[in-house]
């Protein structure tokens, strides 16, 4: 590990506490949307562990600290990809989201229309390639801009736009079934 460079002093001068205060709630929301709120607590903590261990890798010219943190979080989510996809498939199949505590799940089931819609979305999202799902949720839930998503995932802006277009097209196609069903 070396920090002999400008990157060493880049990440808010290492003021992780300040970064945490500013970004942890949004990171938690994003992680929870993918793996549930319980696992999200761990993921947020792991994100900042990784940020602390790798802060020399942060390059403010390539993106904001926020984008960098979401990139780390997304990489960590990938380690739980099976859980994420399994939950989406379960929700699509049964209408019950295994990542939601039971009492809440029951309430969701009661909302029949919304539940039916969620099952269709879950089925479509389970079939999305990982990268498209990353981009879609960073856009829809984390509400990052295109450029921030590009920085977070370390991919070109055009790839973000392309992935988002394809993902949204698939979700919209799935939703058409609610109109026909």
């Amino acid at each position, binding site marked *: 590990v070396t920090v*002999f460079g400008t990157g060493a002093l880049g990440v808010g001068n290492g003021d992780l506490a*300040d970064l945490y205060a500013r970004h942890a709630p949004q990171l938690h929301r994003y992680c929870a949307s993918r793996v549930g709120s319980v696992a999200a607590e761990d993921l*947020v903590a792991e994100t900042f*562990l990784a940020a602390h261990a*790798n802060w020399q890798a942060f390059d403010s010219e390539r993106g904001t600290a926020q984008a960098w943190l979401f990139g780390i979080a997304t990489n960590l989510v990938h380690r739980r990809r099976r859980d994420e996809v399994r939950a989406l498939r379960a929700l699509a199949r049964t209408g019950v989201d295994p990542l939601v505590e039971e009492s809440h799940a029951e309430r969701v089931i009661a909302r029949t229309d919304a539940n039916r819609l*969620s099952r269709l*979305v879950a089925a479509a999202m389970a079939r999305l390639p990982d990268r498209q799902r990353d981009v879609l949720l960073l856009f*829809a*839930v984390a509400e990052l801009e295109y450029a921030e998503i590009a920085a977070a995932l*370390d991919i070109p802006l055009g790839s973000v736009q392309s992935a988002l277009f394809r993902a949204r097209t698939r979700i919209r196609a799935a939703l058409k079934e609610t109109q026909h069903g």
Partner: protein
Amino acid sequence: MADDRDLKAIRTMVEPRLGGAPPDWPTVAARIERKRTAGEAGRWILIPVFAAVILVALGTTVLVLRWYGDSDPGPRGLPRGVAVEPTTSPSAEFRAPADVGPYPDIEAVDPYAMLADLATAAQTSGPITVAPGQLVYRHRVGWVRGSVPAPGATLVQTPTGPVEYQENESWLDPSGMIELPTPEVLASPPPKSDPAATLAAARQNFATNGPSVAQPSPQWAAQLPHDTAELRNLLHPTGQPGSAWGDDHDLFVDVQDFLSNAEPLLTGGTRAALYRLLAELPNLTAARLAIAGQPVVAVRYAGTAVKAGLTTAGTEEILIDPTSGHAVGFGSISGQARYQAVVTWSAVNTLGDRQ
């Protein structure tokens, strides 16, 4: 897409998952501290091997790290056995928990008279000779000290972490001073970047835009001006958006960055002009001291910045060999993250060669 029904549906689907909250900061800070401590313990397993290499290679001795005094680490010292360090060390300020000088082993000197002397010495210092096909080898030895914010802290002004010795070497393509990834780096890419892609992007940028301050080449550096106004305009053009630290600080850092990247390629005339340019800045300080066993002159600029209503202070430095006039090191020696490093350069035939 004007129709956001898909986005609304996604938000509806995930909404039930969004309960709860992130863990509080003290919990996360404690985990970071535990992990850092565990990581250090693992790293220091390699230290005896490293120390043995140092002993053989340099014929020097190693000492148990005692940052706060020669005989008694005292209650503020690092726990015994935490680190083994070469006899050389960073400057005294670096070891201190706060900027509490003065220090007996540092001789303050007039920065402006010293820069004039350094410019004279630099006048006859040339670039290293890099033959076609050769690479530039860079070896850095230094120390870093960072911060682990205490639970509840919102801003840390003084480093709280231990002083860590670090050594780093890299091989650069002289056309653009582009760092080449070693086989080890290629074999274990960091989580957020692809070394091969980074290299390709750097080369593409150089091919498209040609040599520049950020990507110098020997031919480009040989033609740099010896006039301070022209150099100032090259490194810090008028009208360039400034940082919260102010123009003078930004110019000092620009010179620091440029020297850290292009030093071995510069002619004596350009190097001397850079020192004369530094002498145009107000509020400089300078000191004679020894770093890594090497007598140097540290030219320093202390600045402040106001960010989010809080004032942050930082002291940047350039370390110059008073005999040769070459810039031989760099540092940032106050504030919450500090580093100080000395650098040596040489031309080598292939990646992996060191001389």
